[in-house]
């Protein structure tokens, strides 16, 4: 009972971005804008400036404008449900991008077409597994969390912490929010290093905070990569450079380039194909072995 999508040359496509205050989101928006050209879309772009409520209202204004289809990266799992349900009621198919909504209420294939994205929990797990392998299951860890309450922060924490908890040699000394930002990541690291001078691993929920942590380490006279091992998520250009420079150990990719995948999935749907509930994005893992190879494509 999903709304169907008729086959057309040109579609009016809504993309309701949640915010534009970090490189990742900017890259994602750019990817959709580029795709609009290549895929023959009239893109209706809105920005919710970090407010889930405004994002719902943005989706409403798209519905009012009569878009054919909506790509929605829900700011949070739950508050975006009404938007998804209303779009469905108004006959507009919705594709969720990069984050999903609460499974208990809205289901892929019933209320929305599908979810395109990575698995944040898995990203945390991969980071933890790399770390465990690298250190042999020993380490004193400082964790820099993302914005308090946001789902990537919650999931990347859960994935990592659960994995690490299986190894008694590993201990998370402290876990504090760095708001996904470089400056705050640096400040928090500076403070935590003072209290826990024995820490030898830093796990950051994104690359920006990891770069901040590197700066804090250098300011404290420690050698990042040697005295303290840094593990992170995202795969930005700065992070790949830091890996090449030996300052960072690993960053798990969380690709923002959803545009092409969105175009492809939408075409499949218009063709009447049944879409799987979760179109998974394969996240790569960047280490010293491959960083140099991928740095030119990074954002």
């Amino acid at each position, binding site marked *: 009972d999903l709304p169907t999508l008729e086959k057309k040359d040109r579609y009016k496509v809504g993309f309701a971005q949640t915010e534009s*205050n970090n490189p990742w989101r900017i890259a994602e928006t750019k990817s959709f804008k580029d795709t609009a050209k290549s895929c023959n879309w009239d893109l209706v772009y809105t920005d919710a400036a970090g407010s889930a409520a405004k994002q719902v209202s943005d989706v409403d204004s798209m519905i009012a404008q009569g878009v054919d289809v909506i790509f929605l990266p829900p700011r949070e799992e739950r508050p975006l449900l009404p938007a998804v349900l209303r779009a469905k009621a108004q006959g507009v198919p919705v594709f969720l991008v990069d984050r999903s909504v609460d499974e208990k209420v809205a289901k892929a294939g019933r209320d929305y077409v599908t979810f395109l994205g990575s698995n944040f929990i898995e990203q945390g797990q991969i980071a933890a597994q790399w770390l465990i392998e690298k250190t042999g299951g020993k380490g004193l860890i400082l964790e820099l969390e993302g914005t308090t309450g946001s789902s990537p922060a919650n999931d990347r924490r859960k994935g990592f912490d659960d994995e690490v908890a299986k190894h008694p040699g590993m201990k998370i000394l*402290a876990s*504090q929010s760095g708001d996904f930002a470089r*400056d705050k990541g640096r400040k928090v690291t500076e403070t935590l290093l003072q209290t826990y001078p024995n820490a030898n691993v830093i796990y950051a929920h994104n690359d920006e905070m990891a770069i*901040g942590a590197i700066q804090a380490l250098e*300011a404290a006279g420690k050698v990042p990569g040697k005295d303290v091992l840094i593990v992170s998520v995202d795969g930005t250009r700065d992070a790949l450079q830091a890996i090449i420079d030996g300052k960072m150990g690993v960053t798990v990719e969380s690709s923002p380039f959803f545009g092409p995948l969105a175009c492809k999935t939408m075409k499949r749907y218009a063709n009447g194909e049944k879409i799987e509930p979760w179109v998974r994005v394969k996240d790569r893992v960047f280490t010293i072995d491959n960083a140099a190879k991928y740095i030119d494509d990074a954002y």
Partner: protein
Amino acid sequence: MNTSIFEEQRKVPRTLSARALSQVKNNGALWAFFLLLLINILITPNFLQIQTLYVNLTQVATVAIVAIGMTLVIASGGIDLSVGALMALAGTIAPMIFLSDFAASSPALGLFLAIVVAIAVAGLAGLFNGYLISVYKIQPIIATLILFISGRGIAQVLTNGELQTFDNPSFEFIGTGRIFGVPVQAIIAIVLALSIAWVIKRSIYGRFLLAVGGNEKAAELAGVPAKKIKMITYMVCGLLAGIAGLISTAINSASDANQTGQLMELDAISAAIVGGVLLTGGKAPILGAVLGAAIIQLVGYTLLANGVHDAVAMVAKAVIIIVAVYLQQVKGAK
């Protein structure tokens, strides 16, 4: 005929040191600061290390600098919500200049221009605030809300929201350098605080500022150029925000129009208030603002270092603001 009353006057401490001493006794904020130090010495690991001092100094410098400007603005009877946005603006403009082709050909001049132009733009933006407030008589909270909303937007438009990363040791010096081991930005903050405090105390500008903040109509009638004073004040606040923006950019070796100075207005206002500024205007405790910034910094450090989570830290900050202001009022009333 009032001789007895004139004798009373002698009781007011005349010497500087005596006055300073009585100020310490009556300053709730100072007590709070010492109490915090004591608590930290007792419970926070590795607190008594010089590195701890440096970490705190580097972290407090930008808030302190902005809080000084905020104190001036509040003393004039206003408020400035745009400081964070102006930090972002200045922090964005500087790298645009020293990363330009022109600067590549003459790096020294490029760097100089980068710093001067960036700070000047922030100053101009402050002047714009002051102009709206003094000439159009728009309420400060609304007048500065305009740049609060769009100032950061302009910075983001300039860079298309993208991070500008750089590797420019001479510029980074203002964020990461040390002079005799002391972080440069702390030195900048202290020099600014002392000189502005001195200016407020000794200069006509200072007295006029307090007069305008205390009763603008009366000041105007006494020949005080109130509009000019206000415009200067908002401009100075903008300039200081600009300096803070550069420092923050320099530390991070990157300018981030999205994040630089985020929520700075709240920190600066809180610091100014804890430092004893009156929202009714007419009082400009500059060193108090620095102390206020230090207290808020130390609270944050204490909570962070002892593993208290962000959410709880917010509640703690709220309580501290109320307690600090309340104590000051009680002391002031006696």
